[in-house]
């Protein structure tokens, strides 16, 4: 674990200045505050400098300087990580990809696009939608998050239920390795020789190098879509419906649950017409060929009604449908109406365990005297309990961290995982020894060592460092080398 010595910092800044220029760098203390955390605000640490390369060649030179001076570095897209993926543990250099945002090539016939890592997710779909195509992984943050960030965390989104996650849609990457060499892994031609290096880079959370470009798969739009909204008295009824829909062999395009707390917030923000007295609503979307789609929609409707749905509404127009999705995707933004701060978790359980899990979350909320809102990708068992609190109150902070921990423990107990799409980052490093044995982690460490032998790229992410506590620390300030905001 390294920290940059003050004597080096001046040298560092001078050498980086020579690469990116004054406009391509932030080094003043005030401006660096913006980069002291990402969307996971419970831990903060300032970098020594943030640089904004505009080309792969810049990134190469930056990485070489960092290696020469022994300074840690890490890539950052839009900083939407909810797990501290962009936290500069130990200081060092943040390499922001924000200015590498060109879409180099769009090839519909060969179903790919070549984009720089800083391209915003939704720009891709916007670029090809008039051709009737789209980029399938659609995290709720897609209006802000970058493709590079999506690659780092193997991002999901509501439509991954049917269309798969980011790794199913990345054909190849250009990556600057920590030694400054540039590698092209994979590409738009399938089944190239050798190992699937692209596949292991996706989800590596920036610990293998700096991804500068990606060949992404484009997907043809379905012919038709039906979007239904099931209104339920209880969360239990909604989760039972989900299990049944999946269990009967239907593969919806999306199944998203919003509970009453979230409903209040989004209704206030967006005036969709959500029923405020409902226990939960379920967005149920099916897509595909028009022939047979109505039948599928009716089957889902029947299942919802059979499981206690008060009513099942339909989005009648495209505008209706888009508004419904806006409510879902911008739900987190509406949370500010409920509490000054929030912490969201990303647990996963087997689908059939959803009813049990939701009941546990409710009980945990009661135990810690916290309000917990739920909005999540119900179809694949990926939950996002949103713990509401005021971060100015340290006791609430403590209770939030303990409740979060208990929620994730429960996910594990039910046979799930602690992260479905947000990543381990720094937030969940303590859970890695609960998920994996020392041998498992050692094998992963060996692969990381092949990419990142000096360990200077994204240190202290994903894998616990040697000697880390097996028991999770409840108070982050105990951890060596990390300063948390308390």
């Amino acid at each position, binding site marked *: 674990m390294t920290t940059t010595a003050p004597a080096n910092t001046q040298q560092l800044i001078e050498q980086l200045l020579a690469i990116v220029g004054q406009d391509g760098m932030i080094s003043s203390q005030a401006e660096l505050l913006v980069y002291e955390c990402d969307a996971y605000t419970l831990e903060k640490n300032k970098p020594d400098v943030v640089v904004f390369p505009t080309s792969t060649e810049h990134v190469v030179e930056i990485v070489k300087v960092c290696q020469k001076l022994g300074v840690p570095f890490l890539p950052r897209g839009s900083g939407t990580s909810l797990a501290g993926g962009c936290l500069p543990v130990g200081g060092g250099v943040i390499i922001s990809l924000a200015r590498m945002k060109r879409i180099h090539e769009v*090839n519909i*016939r*060969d*179903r790919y696009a070549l984009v720089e890592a800083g391209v915003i997710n939704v720009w891709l779909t916007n670029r090809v939608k008039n051709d009737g195509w789209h980029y399938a992984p659609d995290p709720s943050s897609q209006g802000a998050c970058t493709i590079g960030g999506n690659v780092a*965390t*193997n991002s999901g989104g509501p439509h*991954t239920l049917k269309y798969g*996650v980011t790794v199913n849609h990345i054909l190849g990457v250009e990556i600057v390795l920590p030694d400054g060499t540039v*590698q*092209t*892994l994979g*590409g*738009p*031609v*399938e*089944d*190239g*020789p*050798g*190992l*699937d*290096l692209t*596949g*292991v880079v*996706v*989800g590596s959370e920036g610990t293998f190098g700096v991804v500068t470009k990606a060949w992404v798969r484009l997907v*043809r739009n379905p*012919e038709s879509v039906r979007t239904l909204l099931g209104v339920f008295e209880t969360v239990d009824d909604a989760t039972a419906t989900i*299990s049944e829909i999946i269990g009967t*062999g239907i*593969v919806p395009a999306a199944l998203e649950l919003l509970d009453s707390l979230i409903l209040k917030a989004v209704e206030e923000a967006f005036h969709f017409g959500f029923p405020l007295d409902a226990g939960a609503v379920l967005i149920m979307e099916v897509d*595909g*060929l028009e022939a*047979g789609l109505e*039948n599928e929609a009716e089957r889902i409707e029947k299942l919802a009604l059979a499981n206690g749905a008060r009513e099942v509404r339909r989005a009648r127009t495209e505008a209706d449908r888009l508004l419904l999705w806006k409510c879902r995707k911008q739900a987190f933004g509406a949370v500010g109406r409920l509490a000054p701060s929030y912490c969201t978790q990303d647990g*996963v359980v*087997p*689908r*059939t365990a959803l009813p049990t899990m939701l009941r546990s979350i409710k009980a945990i909320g009661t135990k810690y005297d916290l309000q917990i809102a739920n909005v999540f990708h119900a179809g*694949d*068992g*990926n939950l996002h309990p949103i713990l509401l609190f005021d971060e100015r109150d340290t006791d609430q902070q403590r209770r939030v961290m303990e409740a979060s921990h208990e929620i994730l423990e429960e996910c594990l107990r039910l046979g*799930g*995982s602690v*992260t*479905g*799409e947000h*990543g*381990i980052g720094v937030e969940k490093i303590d859970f*890695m020894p609960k*998920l*994996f044995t020392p*041998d*498992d982690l*050692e*094998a*992963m460490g060996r*692969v990381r060592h*092949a990419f990142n032998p000096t360990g200077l790229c994204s240190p202290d992410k*994903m894998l616990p460092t040697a000697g880390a506590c097996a028991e999770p620390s409840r108070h982050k300030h105990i951890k060596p080398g990390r300063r948390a905001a308390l």
Partner: protein
Amino acid sequence: MPDTIDLDGLSIDSITPATPDALSEIVRVAHTTSKPLYWVGGGTSLDAGLPPRKAGTAVRTTLLDKVIDYPARDMTITVQSGIRISTLQEILAKEKQTLPLDIPWPDKATLGGVLACNTSGSRRLAHGTPRDFVIGLTVLNDQGRPTKSGGRVVKNVAGYDMAKLHVGALGTLGPIVQVTLKVRPLPPARAWLAMPLLGDALDTACDRAHGCQSRPVAFDLLALPGGPVAWTAMIGFEGEPDAVAWQVARAKTEFSNLVKGNIIECQASTVDAMATKLAERTDPAEGVVLALGCLPSRTAALAARVLADLPGAVVHALPGSGLIKTVTSAQVDPRPLLAGWRQAAGPGGWARLVRAPRAWKTADATWGAPRPESTLSSAIQRELDPKGLFNPGRLLHQP
């Protein structure tokens, strides 16, 4: 009980561990003695990659075939890697589920072998390859200790996705012991159309398939020697009966002006096995097999080139994925054709010898010139198998 196996021309003793612990012990001993191990599943792809040269022991995985856990309503299944594909599919079919992969010789092929080779067929157009179905994996490390990655849930980003390294690695990073797969519902209806194509219609057919309304799950081109036409398009559909009926009717109309003679709707009795049979066309016991890869838009031209260069060959192309396989007789060495095919395949394209007399399978013929990223593959290989124990010498990056 040791017996001898012919591993692509190398004759070696084989053993068959009955339990994962027994396999661990075998690996542990190999680590101590530095004696290579070669994995043998169903024996359907033993010639994948370069022929083995180092003496060692063949390890048969076929007794490690248990179902560990099958929570059908979660649409996941956990099995040991020696399970035969047909057995796995039968188990899934009882719950109206399936693994939508088209594997040749499924009665023999094991899941471990399929993953090691990332074997796929026609329906990869719609469903992807085995790589896309693995959500959890247990592999033995070089000391015989189990290491796992992923888990039992379909969304999981905890830790590195090690499975992506192991799938397609020909077992060179360690033996796969246990796998958790996500599965899909078994489609209630299927149909296949065989469309004999007009002589000049190949490229147009592929372009039209790219944007067609009928949206098949498979669109293959097949050239069989001695047929009435050079090329037949094999088009597959699956889904709800109403939808499939609509698709079949639509496809007949959409492609009608490219067809010579009659469009044949395949009989119900052949439909279920059609994709498997197509895959087996280019995986025969005899003959020389080559494979090519290119951008989808180039497939028609490249496939036509292959047929022109190898008159009488069987050629099977997947234009939606840019993949071509061909089987030709072993009388003439096809290696001189590779350079021209690689050129014609375009940037990123490739052409390989898959099955051939051992002497023909040089590194260049089998894998092509090493790509720059092979240094990274080599580094990973050295980390996970520093002694070179696991199926050594088969993948290009190995010494």
